[in-house]
């Protein structure tokens, strides 16, 4: 069976990559791949996300293992970067330049024939046209972040590596950037987005690679990762007009591992959510209980990542 960390149409391949800095291991034996669409790289601060992204962008050499971008080693093929856009975690802007000058210069470095037009288009995409002629030193953190995104997309790359791209942005800007990122992916770009904010990754990414302590903790979409955790029962919150009657029916049911009844709701645990979802309506009808809510509690990325983090 193919590992969920690998995709069939991979543009970027990471093969058994480890990276250490002195005694500190930043990444350990990572094998994964990235293809068109948005892949969210999730993990707490210090999980090794930035180091992995730097290696993907050719900025850092793996200690062992290999990385290929479209079949080429990113360290030895600078021309590859005509196709790659990087938003690094660091500020990395010339504060004395205006946003327009900065993005134009970035476009020049990728060799665009009309860098001014490319910069204008990119700034319009991130909605910075009106502020384009202000110096970056006067910008808020969110505006700088959007400028860096504009600089990364000005040359219209088909591979985009974004390290915490939503840092410092307000909710409206965040929604717009998420829409932009999803749009890039919908047009065939390979987009890798790192974040330690679960809700962000949940909104952006079709596929998640979860990292803890420099290792790959899980891969796939959130439902699939959760389903793979067979040793951790699903929690389901249930509301019904007769909680005690329903509770009595469920205690001892082969699909149920625990039942906790509160004043107004009940929380049960099951190892087979699908089967319970099929059986429960019949049980309720037979016993004359009316169920008003059936809500799996730990299908969110936050819950899944909480489990992953506890396992490390």
């Amino acid at each position, binding site marked *: 069976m193919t590992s969920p960390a690998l995709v069939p149409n991979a543009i970027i391949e990471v093969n058994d990559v480890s990276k250490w800095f002195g005694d500190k291991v930043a990444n350990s034996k990572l094998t994964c791949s990235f293809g068109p669409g948005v892949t969210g790289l999730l993990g707490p601060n210090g999980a090794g996300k930035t180091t992995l992204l730097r290696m993907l962008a050719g*900025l850092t050499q793996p200690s062992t293992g290999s990385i290929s971008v479209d079949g080429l080693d990113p360290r030895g093929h600078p021309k590859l970067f005509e196709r790659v856009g990087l938003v690094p975690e660091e500020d990395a802007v010339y504060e004395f330049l205006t946003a327009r000058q900065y993005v134009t210069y970035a476009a020049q470095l990728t060799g665009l024939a009309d860098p001014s037009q490319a910069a204008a288009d990119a700034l319009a995409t991130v909605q910075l046209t009106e502020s384009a002629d202000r110096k970056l030193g006067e910008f808020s953190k969110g505006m700088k972040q959007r400028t860096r995104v504009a600089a990364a997309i000005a040359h219209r790359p088909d591979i985009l590596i974004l390290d915490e791209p939503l840092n410092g942005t307000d909710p409206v800007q965040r929604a717009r950037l998420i829409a932009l990122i999803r749009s890039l992916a919908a047009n065939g770009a390979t987009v890798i987005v790192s974040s330690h904010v679960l809700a962000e990754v*949940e909104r952006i990414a079709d596929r998640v690679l979860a990292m803890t302590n420099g290792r790959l903790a899980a891969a796939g979409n959130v439902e699939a990762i959760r389903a793979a955790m067979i040793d951790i029962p699903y929690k389901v919150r249930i509301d019904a007009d007769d909680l005690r009657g329903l509770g009595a029916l469920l205690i001892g049911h082969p699909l149920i591992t625990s039942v906790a009844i509160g004043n107004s709701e009940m929380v049960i645990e099951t190892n087979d959510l699908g089967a319970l979802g099929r059986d429960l309506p019949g049980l309720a009808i037979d016993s004359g209980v009316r169920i008003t809510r059936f809500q799996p509690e730990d299908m969110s990325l936050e819950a899944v990542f909480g489990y992953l983090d506890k396992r490390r």
Partner: protein
Amino acid sequence: MTSEGAVFDLGYEQYRGPRLSDRQVFWRMVIDGLKKSVGIGKRARNKAFPFSLVALAILPALGVVVIQVVAKIFGLPLSGDVLLDDREYFDWTSQLIFFFVAVAVPNLLIPDRVENVLLVYTSRPPTINTYLVARLVAMAISVGVFLMIPQLVLLIGEALISPSFFGHLADNLAFWWRVPLTSFAYLAVNVGVAALVAAYINNRGAAIAIYIIGVNVLNGVGIGLSSINEYFSLLSIQFWPTRIRDWVFGVNTLDDFPGADLPIVAVLATTIAFLTLAVALILRRYRKLI
């Protein structure tokens, strides 16, 4: 995970249009470096120092020309000793470029490194080597122009007051190799030392101080130790381009300097060895960063 929400078509598509050549991209980087080295695009106070030095470099040359023109118009006798020739003028401009380089090179290299702006380059097709070469070429051009313009003012001024403008230029063909070669010696040594310091020091003020104090201390040590052996005078970095200048112009103005009689081969070999070592150390430093 949810995939709710609309995905807007923002018209994004991969760029497949024409691209500039590597050379054109390189020269854009050089132009960027030239602007930064003299503070163009920055606040007025950033421009004040380099442009003041440029003015100080050019004004005496203009003064010499004006004196010559006035003397010619009024038929005043003018002693050759009063005025500066092209070789002597280097004594003045070399002092100015010492301070120009002391400030410009750290300004060009250190902020990019400390503020992580190197990523602007290294996450795009230019390599770290291309970046460094572009920065050094930018410095070489700005220092070269700094050294050459006053010399050209002197040459053209002298040509204007001579009986034949073009005859004067024809009589001074050696200018066209002596002055560029001497300028190159001054700029290579000064930029080499300043770039080496700026590559390893992360604070601009400290880099400026280390460069100025370091060069002067080495000058003193070189002169002091040369009483033991005249080859110690090679420790004096500023001696190298001056000795090369004298060799190019076929004179010896360093009579009082202990190393004045050292063979030019020793000076050239020391200069080339130092520059090679400096380039290697700078590359090593930047390759470790990326």
